[in-house]
């Protein structure tokens, strides 16, 4: 699967789409592939403040429980409720319908380092 060029990535295989002061988080296609069939997603409360690198939710596959980490700091403004009924959207559409949360980006993101699509592709090959 090609890596969308409008996204930024972390070394933990999370993606973030930044539009103005809003950021959407999800896990990369590589991550969902490695996790296997996802059967449960635990979402954070709306209004919660999350630091960059903080675990904000949990993705559970048939065999494993994995935290998901925030690529940038912000306050949760929306969660993907569809994942409660269809957690497998993370598998089938990791960069689209499988998004996990949206945050309002806070101003303490100076130290955050993200990869662009090209850098992430290189990272995956290493």
């Amino acid at each position, binding site marked *: 699967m090609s890596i969308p060029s409008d996204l930024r990535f972390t070394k933990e295989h999370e993606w973030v789409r930044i539009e103005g002061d809003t950021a959407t988080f999800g896990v990369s296609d590589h991550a969902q592939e490695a996790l*296997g*069939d996802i*059967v*449960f997603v*635990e979402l954070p409360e709306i209004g919660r403040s999350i630091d960059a690198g903080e675990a904000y939710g*949990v993705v*559970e596959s*048939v*065999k494993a*429980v994995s935290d998901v980490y925030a690529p940038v700091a912000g306050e949760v403004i929306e969660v993907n409720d569809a994942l*409660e009924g269809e957690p*497998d959207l993370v*598998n089938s559409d990791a960069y689209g319908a499988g998004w996990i949360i949206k945050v309002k980006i806070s101003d303490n993101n100076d130290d955050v380092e993200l990869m662009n699509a090209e850098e992430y592709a290189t990272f995956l090959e290493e």
Partner: protein
Amino acid sequence: MTELLKTPLFDAHVALGGKMVPFAGYELPVQYKDGALKEYTAVREGEAGIFDITHMGQVRVQGSDALAFLQYVTTNDVSKLVDGQVQYSALLNDQGTFIDDITTYKINDEAYYLCINAANRHKDVAHLQAQAANFDVEVLDDSDDTTLLALQGAKAQAALQTITSMDLEAIGYYKFARGQIGEAGGIISRTGYTGEDGFEIYIPNSIAEDVWRALVAEGAVPIGLAARDMLRTEMGYALYGHEISDAVTPVEAKLMWITKLDKGDFIGKAAVESRKAEGAKQRLIALRLTGRGIPREHYKVFVDGEESGEITSGMHSPMAGGGVALAYVKPEHVTEGQISVEIRGKQIEAERTQTPFVRSNVRR
């Protein structure tokens, strides 16, 4: 670390996209390329799944004292078996706790096969051979020469019938027959650990790949360890190292139905009788989450806010539509009190239920 063993089907698993992981000393596929849920669905919803369970051990017991020996070392009543019948049973130690759970295959009064768990193989064989000293019986470990496949699901019989001359329709539940399979001979039993109709197939390693390929060509879907464990757990079947171990007796594990205290003496009998009289310290129950979440092994179980025990096997059951689990709790909590499971620090409500968690389709 000891080097992991490979079954004769290792290359076949890799060719099918099997994600190989260490399990009971072997490298086995946890899933194939389409994932555990699709594999699970194939077995539960009308197809057939094929499982490489060669890691399990096979022990031959033969000699004039074979029956008396097995009456003494296993918990179930071997005298009730007719030739060609299989029995679920267990090996206990003197403390009445589990060495292993097994199946006993009766060929005749002087010849039996035991199917044992991979992880317990050397322990079981050493125990059986030590006990055999007092009987006119031989205990032979055939595990290294035997490939064991399970073929489970509604289409299992039709697929298997294409490669054997044995009349499969004539093999009843927990019965077996010996005869031609593919290019060699073997044993087919109508047994399994999935809750679906199906078979377990014992063949020499020399024909393992041919039989595997033939059954896959007949539409059998290769099933990895993850889906196998889902199918097992949904039936509430015990698994060594989870529900049963050398820390519990059949009294705790709800396995008194395979422990026949009225059959004469056997190893562990006295200890089981006294445990039964004094009462178990913990008991196995089945539960279903009413809140959201997945109950997993080792998660703590609370009753009315008091810690009572922990989960031994748990999963998200696609068919039950939620989290189901087996757990040990204090005896006073088997029927009384509000149950909850602690998941990441939160108490998630649960209710007691019965096993199997979903409908069993075995042929009775």
